[in-house]
């Protein structure tokens, strides 16, 4: 019921996404809905809207989902995925302007403490270059 804010990690590389998710699990624990995805539809480096949608679904929380991305295509595809969500979910998913590994850990730490989506995002974005 009172599920914490979900975290989704989106990288161009499936290995980077999985590694970042491993770090979040070890450092933050199990109290945060977490999903990750990386790579294109053929398994190469890149982005895949379908996988991003599936990851958002997997990490879904009624309190929202914060998405951490690495580079351009991951961001653009994540924004596209968010627009394709059902209307009642669209406003509860945000892409954080933060480095993917550090941002995911800070966002998850904030979420684990029960913070709302705005706080989770703000904490991750404190890491963004000015």
């Amino acid at each position, binding site marked *: 019921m009172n599920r914490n804010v979900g975290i989704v990690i989106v990288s161009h590389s499936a290995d980077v996404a999985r590694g970042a998710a491993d770090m979040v699990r070890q450092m933050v624990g199990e109290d945060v809905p977490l999903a990750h995805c990386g790579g294109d539809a053929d398994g190469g*480096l890149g982005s895949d*809207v379908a996988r991003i949608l599936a990851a958002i679904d997997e990490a879904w929380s009624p309190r929202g989902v914060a998405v951490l991305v690495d580079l351009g295509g991951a961001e653009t595809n994540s*924004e596209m995925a968010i627009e394709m969500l059902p209307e009642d979910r669209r406003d509860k998913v945000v892409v954080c302007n933060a480095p993917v590994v550090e941002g995911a850990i800070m966002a998850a730490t904030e979420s684990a403490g029960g913070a709302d989506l705005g706080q989770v995002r703000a904490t991750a974005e404190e890491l963004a270059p000015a």
Partner: protein
Amino acid sequence: MVDTPRSLKPLIRAAAEAVIAHADELTDLDRAIGDGDHGINMKRGAEAVLAEIDLIAAKPMPDALKAIGMALVMKVGGASGPLYGSLLLGMGKAWGDGGMDRAALAASFAAGVDAVKARGKSDRGQKTMLDVLIPVLEDLRETGDAAGLREAAAVACAATRDMKAERGRASFLGERSIGHVDPGARSSSLMIGAICDALGGTS
């Protein structure tokens, strides 16, 4: 120009085949100033559209455009999937009930270009596909002659060579992005050129 939807098929085929034939060139351009996947990504998208071409061409124009856009969003990957996807989805949403005359096409294309601007948080002059799409839109509004559109796209594409990239991966290179044609501008120019050729041959 053309009627909908019977004559949509050769246009889709022309654009898709142009991308597939030039995939290596697009990848080489992208390797110079991007991450080297534009040709591969666009080829994957073009093949996905060709695989559904009969289904797509059987739909009413707005739905056909949206179906192409959705195939590109789901299959292309990279930043170009959502960007080209938004172009086609935007065109489909704005398409009216009428046929495919120049005014209808221009209005639809304008909405698509706006969708690309929003998706890419970009505008003209930043060394992107918009540096081809916007001049083509302007030409389409004024004349809409297929040969003229083709020329406008080619000239606009070549002009990206001297621009400094301000969006996307190429922007990391700053001044070093100057001297290379933008891969997204090239793929736009390729598809527009191929569509114009097909229009010239069928209208």
